C-alpha cells in the first residue's frame, strides 16, 4: 500500500491547476443536463482558482521537470483562473438563455462545457510549461478548442469566422513552431542535445552563449507566430470575427485570457533575447507592432456596426498598447504593461458580460438597434457605461492609472513615441464615447423585457478595476515590481 502511494505523482497545487480542469472536462463531456453541468463548470473553475491561489502562497521548488512556477507566470495563472471562474458563472446564465431560445441544443451544451474546461487546462499548461515545445503544444490545443467554440452556433457567419480563425491561427502556430525549433538549434551547441535544450530554466541561464544570428531569426518567426495569436495589427484579421460570432463567454475568455497567454509566450522569448547581449534587441520590433495595432484599431473603432466586433477592435488596441509597453522595457514601462494587462483582462471581460446579456435581451448585436439602455435596463446599461469609461481610460479607474504610467514613462525616454501613443488612445477614446453615448442614453429601442442576468461577475470585475484605480495594495505593487525587473 505504501509503495503504491509513493509511486503516485505528488498531488500539489501545481498539478491541481492542471488536473482539475482536465478531469472536469472529461466529466462534463459525459454529463447531460444543463443545471448540473453549468454548476459543475463553475465549481471546477472555482477549484482551479483556489489551487492557483494556493500556488501563489506556497510555491513548489522547481524540479527541472516539465512544469515550473516563477514570479512571471504566476501573475498570468492567477489572472486567468480568476477570469475563468467569473466567466464560468456568467456562462451559466448566458447558456441557460441560449438553450431556452434554442440556439444551442443539449448535445452541443455538453460539448461546450467540456471545451471550456479543456481551454482552461490548455491555457494553464501553456503558462506553467517549463519546456518551449510543451508550451507550443498547449497553445495549439487552446487554439483548437476556441476554434471549435467559435463555430458552435453553426451559422454561416460562425463557420466562416471559425474557419478564418483556424487558418490564420494555424499559420501563426506553424511559424511559432519554426521559431521554437530555431531556438532549440541555437541552444544545442551550448546546452547539448536532448531535453535540456528546450527547458526554460536552462535556456534563460545560458542564453548569453547562444548564437545571436539564430536567435534573431527565431525571434522574427516567434513574433509573427505568437503575434498572430496576440492579435497584433497586420495579423489580427481573425480576431474581430472570432469575437463576434462565438458565444459571448468565449469572447470574454478570448479577449481576457487567450491573448494574454500568447503574449506571455512572446515575453518569455523576449527575455531570452534580452539576456544575449549580441542578439538584436526585441524592443523596437514590439514597439512598432504595438503602435501600429494601437493606432489602426483606434481608427477601426469608428466604423463598427456590431457591438461585439467593436469591443474586439478595442482588444486589439489594448493588446497593442501592452505590447508597446513591454517593448519599451524598463522597470516602469513593464510595471505599467503588467498592470494594464491585468486591468484590461478584468474590464474587457466585464464588458463582454454586459454585452452578452444586452445582445440576448435585444436579440441583436447591431449597434444601431440598441438604444437607451440606461433607461430600459439600468443595471446592465450603467454596467456597460462604467466598463466603457474604464476601458477608454478615464480616471479614476484602473486603466487610467496603467495608461498614465505607460505614457509618462515613455515620455521621459522617447517623447515622440509618447505623442503617438496618446494620439492613438485619444482616437479610440472618441470612438468609444461616441458609441456608448448612443447605446446607453436616449429613447430605448427594441425589447425592454426584464433580463435574467448574473450581475455578480460584472460587479466583481468592475469593483476590482475601480479599486485598483484608487488604491493598489502594497504587496501587489511589490510583486509587480519584481516581475517588471525580471522582464528587463
Amino acid at each position: 500500500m505504501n509503495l503504491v502511494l509513493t509511486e503516485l505523482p505528488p498531488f500539489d497545487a501545481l498539478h491541481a491547476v492542471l488536473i482539475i480542469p482536465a478531469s472536469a472536462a472529461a466529466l462534463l463531456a459525459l454529463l447531460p443536463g444543463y443545471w448540473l453541468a453549468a454548476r459543475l463548470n463553475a465549481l471546477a473553475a472555482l477549484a482551479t482558482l483556489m489551487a492557483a491561489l494556493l500556488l501563489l502562497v506556497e510555491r513548489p521548488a522547481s524540479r527541472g521537470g516539465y512544469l515550473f512556477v516563477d514570479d512571471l507566470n504566476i501573475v498570468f495563472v492567477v489572472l486567468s483562473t480568476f477570469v475563468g471562474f467569473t466567466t464560468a458563472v456568467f456562462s451559466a446564465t448566458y447558456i441557460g438563455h441560449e438553450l431556452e431560445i434554442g440556439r444551442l441544443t443539449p448535445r452541443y451544451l455538453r460539448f461546450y462545457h467540456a471545451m471550456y474546461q479543456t481551454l482552461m487546462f490548455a491555457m494553464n499548461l501553456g503558462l506553467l510549461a517549463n519546456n518551449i515545445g510543451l508550451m507550443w503544444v498547449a497553445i495549439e490545443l487552446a487554439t483548437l478548442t476556441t476554434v471549435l467554440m467559435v463555430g458552435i452556433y453553426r451559422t454561416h457567419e460562425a463557420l466562416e469566422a471559425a474557419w478564418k480563425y483556424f487558418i490564420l491561427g494555424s499559420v501563426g502556430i506553424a511559424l511559432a513552431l519554426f521559431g521554437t525549433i530555431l531556438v532549440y538549434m541555437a541552444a544545442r551547441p551550448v546546452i547539448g542535445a536532448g531535453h535540456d535544450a528546450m527547458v526554460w530554466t536552462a535556456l534563460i541561464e545560458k542564453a548569453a552563449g547562444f548564437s545571436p544570428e539564430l536567435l534573431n531569426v527565431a525571434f522574427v518567426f516567434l513574433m509573427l507566430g505568437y503575434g498572430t495569436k496576440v492579435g497584433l495589427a497586420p495579423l489580427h484579421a481573425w480576431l474581430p470575427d472570432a469575437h463576434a460570432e462565438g458565444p459571448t463567454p468565449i469572447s470574454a475568455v478570448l479577449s481576457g485570457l487567450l491573448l494574454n497567454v500568447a503574449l506571455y509566450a512572446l515575453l518569455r522569448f523576449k527575455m531570452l533575447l534580452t539576456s544575449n547581449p549580441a542578439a538584436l534587441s526585441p524592443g523596437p520590433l514590439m514597439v512598432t507592432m504595438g503602435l501600429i495595432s494601437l493606432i489602426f484599431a483606434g481608427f477601426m473603432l469608428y466604423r463598427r456596426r456590431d457591438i461585439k466586433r467593436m469591443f474586439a477592435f478595442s482588444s486589439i488596441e489594448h493588446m497593442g498598447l501592452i505590447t508597446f509597453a513591454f517593448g519599451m522595457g524598463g522597470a516602469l514601462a513593464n510595471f505599467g504593461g503588467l498592470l494594464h494587462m491585468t486591468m484590461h483582462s478584468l474590464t474587457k471581460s466585464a464588458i463582454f458580460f454586459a454585452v452578452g446579456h444586452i445582445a440576448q435581451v435585444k436579440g441583436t448585436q447591431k449597434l444601431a438597434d440598441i438604444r437607451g439602455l440606461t433607461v430600459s435596463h439600468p443595471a446592465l446599461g450603467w454596467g456597460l457605461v462604467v466598463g466603457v469609461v474604464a476601458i477608454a481610460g478615464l480616471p479614476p479607474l484602473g486603466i487610467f492609472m496603467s495608461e498614465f504610467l505607460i505614457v509618462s514613462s515613455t515620455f521621459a525616454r522617447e517623447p515622440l513615441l509618447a505623442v503617438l501613443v496618446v494620439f492613438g488612445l485619444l482616437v479610440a477614446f472618441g470612438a468609444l464615447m461616441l458609441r456608448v453615448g448612443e447605446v446607453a442614453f436616449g429613447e430605448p429601442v427594441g425589447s425592454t423585457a426584464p433580463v435574467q442576468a448574473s450581475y455578480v461577475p460584472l460587479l466583481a470585475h468592475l469593483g476590482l478595476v475601480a479599486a485598483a484605480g484608487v488604491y493598489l495594495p502594497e504587496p501587489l505593487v511589490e510583486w509587480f515590481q519584481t516581475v517588471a525587473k525580471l522582464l528587463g
Partner: protein
Amino acid sequence: MNGLSLDIAHLLAGGLVLTSFMLLYQDRMYGLLNTFTLQAVVLSASVAWQANIQLAPHLYVTALIALVLKAIIIPVALHRVVARLGIHRTIETVVGIGPTMLAGMGLVALSMVVMLKATAAADPLAREDLAFALSVVLLGLMMMVTRRNAVSQVVGFMSLENGLILAATGAKGMPLVVEISVAFSVLVAFIVIGVFLFRIRERFDSVDVQALDVFRGERR
C-alpha cells in the same frame, strides 16, 4: 557520419523543395493532390533517413505517421471531398503561375541567404536542412496566399507543415518531435474534417476584414 549519408539526406530534403515547386504549378485539383502525396512520401523517406543516420529510432514513428496519414489517408479523403464538391477542374489562382514560380525562386534564395548566414556555426547537416525546410515553409505560405480554393489552401498548409517536420527532424536530438508531429496531425485532421463537413468550397474570398465588413453591411 560519412559523406554519402549526408548526400542522401540533402537529396531527400532538396526533393522536398522540388515537390513544393511542383505544387505551385499544378492547375488540376487531382494533380495537386497527387503531387502532395509524392511530397509526403519524400518527407517520410527523409525523416526515416534522418532516423537512420542520427540513430534515433523514435523518428521512425514520425516517418510512419507522415506516410500513413499524409500519403494515404488525407489524399484519399481529399479526393473524395473534391469529387463530392465537384471542384476537380481548375484551381483558381490569384496570381499567374509564372510570377508565382519566380516569386518562389526568390523565396528559396531568401531562405538560403538567411539560414546559411544565421547557422554558420551549426553542423552542415542541420544547416542545409534548415535552409531547405524554411524554403518549404515559405513556399507553402505562398501557396496559401495565392490560391482561392479552400482545398488547395489546405494542401498549402500541409506542405508548410511538411517543412516544419523536416526542420524538427533535422535538428539533431530535438525532444518532443514525435509529440509535435502528432499534435500537428490532429490539427491537419481537423482541417480536413472541417472542409469535408462544412463543404467549404472557396476560402472566404479574402482574409482581410474589409471584405467581411462589406458582407455584414459594416461598411458605409
